[in-house]
């Protein structure tokens, strides 16, 4: 597998969607290609950083408007 092949399969590799043979081939490339190893690592970090980020607080006025609308809805008979 060359660099191009690795880049093409990064997503599948990160998601664990590669079959054993492909995975082994990709990892063999990473063993001797520092650039690809960095890209794979950093792409994985990118996913992790976004995935772990906590949602910020809902702005107070946005939350009140949501709950006002909800109260109106909850009072209606449900159809």
């Amino acid at each position, binding site marked *: 597998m060359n*660099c*191009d092949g690795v*880049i*093409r399969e*990064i*997503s*599948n590799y*990160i998601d664990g969607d590669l079959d054993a043979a492909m995975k082994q081939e990709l990892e063999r490339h990473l063993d001797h290609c520092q*650039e690809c190893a*960095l*890209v794979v690592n*950093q*792409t994985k*970090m*990118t*996913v992790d*950083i*976004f*995935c772990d*980020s*906590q*949602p*910020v*607080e*809902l702005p107070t006025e*946005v*939350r009140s*408007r*949501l*709950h006002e*609308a*909800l109260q109106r*809805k*909850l009072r209606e008979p*449900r*159809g």
Partner: protein
Amino acid sequence: MDDVPKPGFGRARLEKTRSHYFLSKVVLGPLYPVAAGSVNPTLFAAGQNYSFISESYALAASSKRWAEVEAAVLCATFMIEPTKTGLFLGPLKATPLSAPNPHRLPSAIAREDEHLLVAAAKSGDATAFEELVNRYERKIFRLTMNITRNREDAEDAMQDAFLKAYSHLNTFQGDSRFYTWLVRIAANEALMRLRKRRPNQVSLDEPIEGDDDLMPREIEDWRPSPEQRYAQSEMHEILDQVIEHLEPDFRVVFVLRDIEELSTEETAAAVGISVPAVKSRLLRARLKLRQKLNRYFRQGEPN
């Protein structure tokens, strides 16, 4: 379990009490372990008014009345009939439940009682639905904000998503998580607004992107690690910046797959594109984001 039995006698009552016991894990939040050690759900069937305790705790915690918070925990722990303690400030009826920090709970706990809340909401318990809203409003707003990148649209999409979820609650089958179902509704609402605002930028088509520009440029070491370099608030800003500048087609797929953790198939269904298109856009989104982040994370870049 599709329906939480109405309070009554015997087994039905025990089941209902159990659901409050699970609910308490979320409502009691960080204090849950204190209560959990000694709460026995079977004994609760003897008549403990658990929803009263939960509501009292939530209300007291949100208004920082610590004596009452403690009283609620004591009641839960030692099974004291709360109405007899005189520790609470008065009637708390019709107060929406509000969990202190629902998004910080381990997802396993949050998931455990989700179906109980959904079942209660289905059988007409408005408080249970409000609890679901309280629990997910921040995440749903982040989702609609990430897709639309327009605050007005994001708010409308979030509101309509919750209202539609409530109206169509009876069509929710329970074969997926409620949250996943909610994400699909919210993603739809957000996408509709995004397409309206940028009709030419969001394609429903199969991948238009070729195989060309995949090769990463700007490959540099990220040291010290991004978490060591940036405080949480700075990190939030950086992530916001880089996702803002990702093209909508890529952004939507990335948000659903990597932030909301939908499966490839669920993402394909939500966006209305094929599975290969999801995979192709996800790969490009991840590579583009890595490259954008490199500008902040590379060695020697001033903080």
